[in-house]
């Protein structure tokens, strides 16, 4: 009794969008929540954000970057094929409120995570300024979707191959220098990006929410493997998060904790051989 892959497409190099059958999760999920899946019987449990859902069709959308063995396995499940386990929705939903002007910042595949949150914040009546960025043009995702929900969308690339040349923080700084008023920032992407955004907003006193991605197993508060440092305390990301006040997060600790298994991950990755079709 697995979950069927309804549709699969490449959004960018090694970034895959997958529509998966999961009627109960589709009906229940709220923005900011995630699932944990296992591709097969020998597989690892990995968390992925629910990027979108269609309760009518009974499906959810996942967008993931292929970084290691499990995401490679997932990439290679064909349309019509199944993954063995899917549990969710997990984590606390985003606190959707009317803040005024919201700035949603997505870096790399983090854009997939911020998309449902930004959409909900827009629907709640906020003015939405979005900044999305990636290393280069080929890695940009969801520019059209983000454009449709944003009052203003700014796109940047590290190498200048598309639109603004620079980091998302450069764009944010520029906005603030221009005098654009921002009530709250949501920043989701690679750790260095989230940390840099928090440095910018801390100086200006703008509340900033980040979504953390530590290594998880159960996602129900049972193992404590997902613990992160927030405001000097340990929090379990799966039950207390995944969103936290970015100004309170110990990014150094999280960066170190994400590098617990480098040699095992490499071993798993290099030994992976996709099944011949």
């Amino acid at each position, binding site marked *: 009794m697995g979950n069927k892959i309804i549709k699969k497409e490449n959004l960018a190099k090694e970034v895959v969008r997958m529509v998966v059958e999961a009627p*109960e*999760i589709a009906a229940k999920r709220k923005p900011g929540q995630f699932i944990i899946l296992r591709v097969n019987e020998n597989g*690892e449990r990995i968390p992925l954000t629910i990027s979108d859902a269609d309760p009518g069709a009974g499906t959810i959308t996942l967008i993931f970057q292929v970084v290691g063995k499990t995401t490679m396995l997932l990439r290679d499940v064909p349309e019509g094929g199944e993954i*063995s*386990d899917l549990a969710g929705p997990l984590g606390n939903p985003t606190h959707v409120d009317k803040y005024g002007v919201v700035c949603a910042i997505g870096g790399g595949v983090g854009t997939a995570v911020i998309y449902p949150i930004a959409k909900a914040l827009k629907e709640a009546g906020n003015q939405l300024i979005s900044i999305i960025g990636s290393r280069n043009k080929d890695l940009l995702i969801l520019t059209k979707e983000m454009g449709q929900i944003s009052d203003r969308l700014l796109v940047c690339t590290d190498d200048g191959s598309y639109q603004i040349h620079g980091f998302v923080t450069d764009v944010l700084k520029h906005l603030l220098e221009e005098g654009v008023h921002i009530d709250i920032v949501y920043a989701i992407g690679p750790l260095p990006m989230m940390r840099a955004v928090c440095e910018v907003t801390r100086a200006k006193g703008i509340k900033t929410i980040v979504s953390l991605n530590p290594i998880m*197993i159960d996602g129900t508060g*049972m*193992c404590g493997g997902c613990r992160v440092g927030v405001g000097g305390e340990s929090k379990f990301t799966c039950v207390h998060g995944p969103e936290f006040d970015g100004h309170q997060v110990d990014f150094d600790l999280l960066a*170190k904790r994400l590098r*617990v298994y480098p040699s095992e991950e490499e071993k798993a990755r290099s030994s992976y051989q996709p099944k011949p079709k």
Partner: protein
Amino acid sequence: MNEEIKPSPSKVKTPRQKMPEQDASARTRNFQEVPFGYTPELAVREASRCVQCKKPKCIEGCPVNVSIPAFIKLIKEEKFTEAARKIKEENSLPAVCGRVCPQEEQCESFCILGAKGKDQPVAIGNLERFAADWEREHEGFIIPEMAKPTGKKVAIVGSGPAGLTAAGDLIRRGHEVTIFEALHKAGGVLVYGIPEFRLPKAIVQAEVDYLKKLGVRVFLNRIVGRSVTIPELFAQGYGAVFVGSGAGAPQFMNIPGENLNGVFSANEYLTRSNLMKAYAFPDYDTPIIRGTRVATIGGGNVAMDSARTALRLGAETSAIIYRRSRTEMPARAAEVHHAEEEGIKFELLTLPVRIVGNDKGFVQALECVRMELGEPDESGRRRPVRVPGSEFTIEVDTVVVAIGNLPNPLIPDSTPEIKTSPRGTIIAETDTGLTSMPGVFAGGDIVTGAATVILAMGAGKASARAIDRMLKQ
């Protein structure tokens, strides 16, 4: 000094029969079960030691009052399957309980043979295990007489011993039963916590398969409170809900360095190894740190399981760090004994105060201080106090924190109607498990706090009776 008086040769009785087991040096290199179990000959010989007391005390010592002398008599008569079925009248998981119950504190502590101090008690646990294994391996489980379908639906939250037992009893009484389990495998602590070398997962799987055969539906990957809430279950037509969600939230010590890489809660360590089979990495994808010098903090079964798992993952040294003395250690006697045989070091009366890491954020050492026992505390055990100036450091690369688990807060947090104690346990009536929310019953570790398999099973039984009564009203 007090030499025991040897009984005269004519009165020499059969000694307590040892269970054959893997040699300590061999078993620390594999994850296979340590004891092999009795042969029929050994079982019959051990069973013949039971003197069939008129007023058997052992039954009183059993939390679910198994008819112990009766099943032992059946073993003596070589009616092994009948013996198993006798046990199952009260205990639906004998293959599990025979392996993990703290018999030395329960049934066996009441055995008249042991009470006289000259002999050892009958090995009730070993016999229970033998009978249950025999039935499973030779006869298979029988489909019991099932009551006519009542048309009532019951939802069971969690598939640990409490949930499995409640499910079995309720389906037999004719109700439609569905288990909701958060993880991808059913069994609770029996699959994710207790290691293979102590409780083979095939045994737990056989119990789950049996329930399915009886008609119990098992929904995996369903987190009640997130995937579906209790009020929603009632709206879906369930007439009663039994919550057996366990005590699955790990506690940490709140000492510096606890978030370093290489520090695990016992739950994480054991879940990686057991449920995710990290010991078979890379055949299984989940990794685990295979430390060479491992320290496990705690003195219960969970700590023993972690320390022994560390050895099997290849540790050169594996130590238990416990702040009280040997006598206060809550682990089963058999586990401590096995751990010692396997070369686990015991640093007793020792309290960790800090975990030291390197610049990459990995564990390097554990700073400890020696303790001595002072006045008794609320639990009646003598409170350990620090010995000034006794600080010392142990070099380690892995630390497993096994100092206890708190009730899993997911259900209480998502269901404010269910009242909880300040400790976070669900408040439930003793005989029925009824909670403050109508139609919702609870039992096992979520009610008692971390306890035992047999108590969880007993609670599942009691609630099944109460739910049956309520539904038939």
